[in-house]
């Protein structure tokens, strides 16, 4: 029997687009660089050739108008996906995302639903510097009315993209170029209702709960494997959807492991890691944990360009292993 074919995260996104555009004539994609692998990696290869450039629309350099135009199209029955090849540039479109898409249902008494998906790519490293590196998921998770999705596996990259586009609400779908080569065999597509998608328990364990989203969830899985070698049995929770957040799964896990470390690719102040710690502190009470909870985040500085600084800027699996070992008082070889 042959091994099932493995699909990369980047190709899984492309398969998600392919599924959506083949099965739903109202789906289209719009954004900068959609006809160029230089912008979107392997994640949209040849979609323009397969579905036509009227449905895969490469645009002028107008993040704001293109994002808002997708809202307008969604109000008229379409299911647009707006692609921002770098989240940093998406900040020029904060008004349509935060003031418009997230609020129209509420402001207009539920009479309309902007059902657009905004796809933001986190694309960092490689000395790209402070305006080509940000992961600002926490900003957007703050906003009621906007669902924020962060897949960490190839299967989720495909299936959560599909669920986001089929969802009647505005969704910010954040994928990470550092995950594009992560691969696994994919089962057939099963359409999911995004409203019932919560955290995934990637690994069962009893000593500590590691929580992450997107690339950070992958770091948690890698760290958990190394920590197992040190005798630390980690439970890994992949948040997947950070707003609205499935708190119950995190709380249940922490109440069992009685220890918590959150890995977050954003900054610390008012961030995703802070939110998870606050939920646990608030819901489980002061004596629920046997060690002080831990946040592993970026340092409070913009992303550097120089390779020497970049290497220490981003947390790695080893960073997580060392920090957790210290947190739990476990010896780790220097």
């Amino acid at each position, binding site marked *: 029997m042959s091994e099932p074919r493995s699909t990369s995260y980047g190709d899984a996104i492309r398969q998600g687009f392919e599924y959506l555009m083949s099965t739903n004539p109202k789906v289209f994609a719009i954004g900068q660089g959609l006809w160029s692998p230089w912008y979107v990696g392997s994640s949209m290869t040849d979609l323009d050739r397969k579905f036509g450039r009227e449905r895969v629309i490469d645009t002028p350099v107008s993040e704001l108008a293109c994002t808002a135009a997708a809202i307008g*199209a969604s109000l008229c029955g379409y299911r647009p996906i707006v692609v921002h090849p770098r989240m940093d540039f998406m900040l020029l479109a904060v008004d349509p995302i935060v003031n418009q898409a997230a609020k129209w249902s509420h402001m207009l008494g539920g009479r309309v639903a902007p059902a657009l998906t905004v796809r933001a790519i986190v694309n960092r490293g490689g000395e790209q510097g402070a305006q080509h590196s940000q992961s600002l998921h926490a900003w957007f998770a703050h906003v009621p009315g906007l669902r924020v999705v962060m897949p960490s596996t190839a299967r989720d990259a495909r299936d959560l993209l599909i669920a986001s586009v089929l969802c009647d609400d505005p969704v910010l779908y954040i994928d990470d170029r550092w995950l594009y080569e992560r691969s696994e065999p994919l089962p057939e597509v099963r359409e999911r209702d995004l409203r019932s998608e919560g955290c995934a328990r990637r690994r069962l364990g009893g000593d500590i709960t590691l929580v992450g989203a997107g690339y950070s969830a992958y770091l948690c899985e890698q760290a958990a494997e190394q920590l197992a070698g040190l005798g630390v049995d980690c439970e890994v929770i992949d948040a997947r959807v950070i707003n609205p957040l499935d708190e119950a799964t995190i709380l249940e896990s922490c109440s069992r492991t009685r220890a918590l470390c959150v890995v977050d690719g954003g900054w610390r102040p008012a961030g995703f890691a802070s939110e998870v710690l606050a939920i646990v502190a608030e819901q489980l009470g002061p004596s629920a944990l046997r060690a002080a909870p831990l946040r592993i985040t970026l340092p409070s500085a913009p992303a550097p360009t120089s390779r020497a600084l970049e290497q220490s800027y981003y947390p790695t699996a080893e960073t997580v292993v060392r920090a957790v070992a210290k947190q739990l008082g476990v010896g780790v070889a220097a």
Partner: protein
Amino acid sequence: MSALRGSELGSLADPAELSAALDVRREPPLRLLRFLRDMLRIRIIEEVVAEWVERGLARAPCHLGIGQEAVAVGVSAHLEPRDRVFGGHRSHAHYLALGGDVYGLLAEILGRHDGVSRGMGGSMHLVDRAVGFHGSVPLVGATIPIAVGAGLAAKMDGEGAVAVSYFGDGASEEGVLHESLNLAATFGIPVLFVCENNLYSSHLDIAQRQPSDRVARFGEAHRIPSVSIDGNDVLAVARAAQPLIARARAGEGAALIEAVTYRHRGHVGPKEDVDVGLRRSLDELAAWKRRDPIRRLADAMLAANLMTPAAFAAHERAQRSEIAALAQRAEAAPYPPQSALLDYVFAGAAR
């Protein structure tokens, strides 16, 4: 009164000009009656709202367009329910001119659950897709690109629907107008940009904000057919809109109308606010009131014996009493239930 230094609009922005009765000789009388009725209805409704604000009944910010009724009425003469109209903070007229529900608007302005937005929006957040009104919100310029997207959807549908974006001269200072015009022109999107240039953005005169008072220049820069017209002449508005909407329906792309007009009231609320701006004075306001779009049409129809003064007075009385009854009903309507606070955050409630 002479136009200010640097005025490219000339007589269009000069209230001493263009105040005579309209030329109605070529117009079908029924159409004139409909224009008069629609403008008057909008005027009376906004006067009710002004009174509500004065009495403290309407508390949400209300931006009145009294004096500007001809723009929406003239444009809407060529629109259909399948079209997609978007507005901004001053959009009561944009909605009503489409044949919008008077009670639904009044109830909305009072924040009642019977309102067009179920009492969740108030004056500044209106929607009623049944008549083609897809949304108005107060972030300046925000709906311009949304209308472009609705036009893109119409183009994809390929059935000849058009989008309309109403905005003011203030919004022409937002960068998003440039992005939107460029996108519409480049992609051949059927959208009509309608700038109501009332010469003021909040308290600031356009001369204090732009090197030219002529907003149509932005459309021209993007190779979009653009016209500047007297926005207080409902016939001129309808005449300008007709071919531009027709060509958009035929797949020939976007166009821009700059309708020069003037609001009798302040930026927000019922007061006339004569004490602000570079040139806004009692004299100027009085001059613009002589250029009132309703009076100019009514005078012409009276002069042409299309109606008698008594019939006009009776019509106005009838409209006033009908609207007063709807207003009274709105005042008694229920507020949204507490559950509405969370019910509408995400889709799912009945639309």
